[in-house]
């Protein structure tokens, strides 16, 4: 199971994403934004960070990086792709996912352990969760407000494409408390909070908060399960 992790100039969480892949039992393959091929990987993670300094709009310049051309084609063909935080912004800019992410409504950077409810569990990234299960993983963003027009939001909810929602307060003004969405087939998932930061004891959310601190791990073990079953 080879999982590519793309590094753009300004990516921040690529090493953590690669580590999460390894902890889950996969092989992490570094992909460079300037690469023109995906090196035969079975899935791709677009990590968090501030690619291209968030210039123009978050993800707007990365979306046209050379590696995105084969990635967009492969994603449309069914390749499993997870975009976390900045990666989610890149997927929206690439129109692989609907909507967009704008500056938090309260205009402050938010960094905290965040409760989420997992709502779509038939994706390669979430099949190890129960529908409606609440998890806690870190959230850290300045531009994490998920927005789309009402017709798009209705469509996402009607088709069951909301992957995760914020629970216990909306941290960034996201419409309908949406924390993550998927494409129609479910192989492409974008998520604003960071599952890769909740995969190792004592390095994720505080276990004293009543969670294991490892709630993010199943995003990565789900993938292995999916590939093993395929």
């Amino acid at each position, binding site marked *: 199971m080879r999982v590519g992790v793309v590094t753009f100039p300004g990516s921040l969480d690529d090493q953590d994403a690669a580590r999460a892949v390894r902890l889950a039992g996969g092989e992490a393959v570094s992909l460079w934004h300037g690469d023109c091929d995906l090196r035969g990987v079975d899935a791709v993670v677009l990590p968090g960070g501030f690619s291209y300094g968030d210039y*123009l*709009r978050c993800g*707007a310049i990365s979306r*046209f990086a050379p590696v995105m051309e084969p990635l967009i084609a492969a994603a449309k063909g069914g390749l499993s792709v997870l975009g976390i935080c900045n990666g989610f912004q890149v997927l*929206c*800019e690439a129109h692989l996912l*609907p*909507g*967009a992410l*704008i*500056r*938090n*409504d*309260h*205009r402050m950077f938010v960094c905290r352990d965040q409760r989420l409810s997992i709502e779509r569990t038939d994706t390669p990234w979430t099949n190890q969760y129960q529908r409606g299960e609440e998890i806690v993983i870190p959230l850290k963003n300045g531009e994490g*407000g998920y*927005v*789309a*027009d009402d017709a798009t939001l209705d469509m996402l909810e009607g088709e069951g494409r909301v992957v995760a929602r914020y629970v216990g307060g909306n941290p960034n*003004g996201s419409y309908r408390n949406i924390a993550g969405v998927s494409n129609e087939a479910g192989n492409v998932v974008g998520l604003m909070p960071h599952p890769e930061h909740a995969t190792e004891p004592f390095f994720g959310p505080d276990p004293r908060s009543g969670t294991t601190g490892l709630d993010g791990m199943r995003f990565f073990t789900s993938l292995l399960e999916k590939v093993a079953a395929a």
Partner: protein
Amino acid sequence: MGRIVVDVMPKPEILDPQGKAVAGALARLGYDEFGAVRQGKRFELEVDGEVTPELLGRAREAAGLLLSNPVIEDVVNVSADESADESADDDAVVS
């Protein structure tokens, strides 16, 4: 040297946190007659020679592809900047 100006604004229905912050600061400075502020972006694209209809067409294409995100923004203006030549002269005087 010609110049094309592209103006991009957040869509009216999308929250504009930057505009809100600027409106708050204006009010604190006593400019309370400006009830709301929306902040957009202006791009200046330089071209060799005259701005032709073809070049404006290319600029419109680039505005839709890269300079704006149609999900959250509108391109409200793509036009030749008539003052481009004058400002080039100004630069010459200053230097």
